């Protein structure tokens, strides 16, 4: 009996450790402990930047969480005094993440498209992000190798990722995959469609920021640097996958889900 209790206790303890270790980062809706940097509302806690608590009625949306990224539909447009015939238009093509935008044809105009526009409309170098995320689309190199605790093969490294960041907003369908596989320089990298359920293309089969990042909750449990100069910074920020409970392995797993990464310069083109 004692053994049984001890076994149950150890099991419970292990389960406890396991759940603690594999726990993802704070949910965007967590207002008790807080800590999710994408929750910009005044109700958040344990973050550096958040809205001021509301004082007047007009500031009420300071307490809302979604509003900072997802634009609410506002049904009463102002009449345009210089163009009275067209007062009922709606802008905000990407105002809602529930909009289904299918633009897979060759006629689609340039990146970024889809949900990546929501990321880039704030991560512009002023409102969010010291380095504008435009670098991703422009193939600039951001070296994450200095003082970085992600050490896996998929670590962004100025030498390895020769032309910088990963592109986004491209269709990744059979035609594209076949074309990549047919490329002699890339044929050895075993390109494939993602198989980890959390690593998703969007509804139009496009790779977007959200393929690798979950802006609502960091799924990688090892989530904070402990040593200077990066104390408090998230490891694998808002990462989409946390199955390995280790930032390096989680990071590698997502990258390697679509293709291998050679140790030489990559991509080769």
């Amino acid at each position, binding site marked *: 009996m004692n053994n049984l209790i001890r076994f149950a206790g150890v099991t419970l303890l292990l389960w406890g450790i396991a759940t603690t270790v594999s726990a993802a980062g704070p949910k965007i809706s967590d207002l008790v402990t807080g800590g999710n940097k994408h929750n910009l509302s005044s109700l958040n806690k344990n973050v550096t930047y958040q809205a001021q608590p509301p004082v007047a009625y007009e500031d009420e949306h300071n307490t809302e969480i979604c509003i900072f990224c997802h634009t*609410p539909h506002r049904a009463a447009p102002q009449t345009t005094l210089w163009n009275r015939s067209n007062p009922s238009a709606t802008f905000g093509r990407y105002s809602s993440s529930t909009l289904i935008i299918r633009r897979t044809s060759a006629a689609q105009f340039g990146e970024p498209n889809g949900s990546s526009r929501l990321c880039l409309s704030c991560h512009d170098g002023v409102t969010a992000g010291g380095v504008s995320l435009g670098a991703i689309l422009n193939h600039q190199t951001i070296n994450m190798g200095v003082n970085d605790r992600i050490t896996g093969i998929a670590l962004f490294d100025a030498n390895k990722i020769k032309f910088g960041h990963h592109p986004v907003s491209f269709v990744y369908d059979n035609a594209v995959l076949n074309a990549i596989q047919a490329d002699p320089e890339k044929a050895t990298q075993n390109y494939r469609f993602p198989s980890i359920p959390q690593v998703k293309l969007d509804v139009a089969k496009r790779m977007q920021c959200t393929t690798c990042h979950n802006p609502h909750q960091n799924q990688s449990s090892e989530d904070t640097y402990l040593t200077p100069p990066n104390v408090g910074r998230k490891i694998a920020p808002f990462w989409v996958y946390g199955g390995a409970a280790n930032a390096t392995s989680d990071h590698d797993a997502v990258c390697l889900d679509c293709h291998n990464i050679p140790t030489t310069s990559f991509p080769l083109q």
Partner: protein
Amino acid sequence: MPERKKYCHTVRLVVVCCVVVLCSACSSVEPILLRDQSVNLVWPQPPDPPRIKYLRDVKGPEDIYPEKNKFQKITEMVTGDNRLILELLTPYSVASNSKGVIYIADTTMGVVHRYDLVERDVSYIGRAGDEQLSSPVAVALDLEDNLYISDSVLNKVFKFKKDGEFVKELTPPAGFKRPGGIAVNSAGEKFVVDALADILHKFNANDLYEGEFPQRLPGEELNTPSFVATDRSGNVYVTDAMNFTVKKYSADGKLMNRIGEVGDVPGTFARPKGVALDSDGHVYVVDANHNNFQIFNGEGQLLLYVGSNGERPGEFSLPSGIFIDNQDRIFVADTFNRRIQVFQYLRAGAKHE
């Protein structure tokens, strides 16, 4: 594309001198024509009287440099083309001086492009003294055509003479947390947005620090402001990005009114960015998510909006900064289309071509 990638990769190494001026030998060229005759676009649509007219876009140095003459072509067969060509990569803010020079802050390129529309000359500002620009996000000019650049990674604001010579830094006592937009009023006073401090810093005509702007009022705090503009009366217009509005303040920092609120229909904002005023005091506000700029009167009533998502003339892809010169020419940084689009405000009653 591979060529562009190549510049992107090497540009920070290439831009090593303070100002690289090339093609200075071009003499007696015709000033660039700020009008694309092949495009005839006005807003609003007829039969309403037109108020805004599309002029042209500027995509890079090749739009500025004059056609090479035969002699130059022959010379270059021997010497090679010595022009340093840096394309617009992420044009974020734009400003022009009274002499037809436009400055474009390019965040990921890490330079400010200088396009002289009269001399048809191109140069780049990549350093401030010993420091290499990292993320220039805003440009502004004072009454003497001195140039101010804010850098959101270095967290500094730099002043340059009009010939490109670095003068000094402008620094508030506690430093900048993340500087953004800059505006200079008719008295030569500078207003610099500090996005993370939720405030602006004011410097007088002699660059001396004058304190924070506006007055901090409970319930009226700015939330991550980004851009700023001033009108002829000294009023200050601040894009209050995370409050989804533009706030109009009197010269002494009192809140007068708000322009726009959060939403997805005309008169509202999702990602308000650059703000500017024309000679009649209308307020132009760019919205990156709506891919347009909306024009309001001083009371915040919507007059017109221009633009939609796309890459053709009059269409935008995540636009950011806006600047209106003293001839009512409107320059919009069409960031992810990698170009500047130029429009003309047509004053009521004035003669137009």
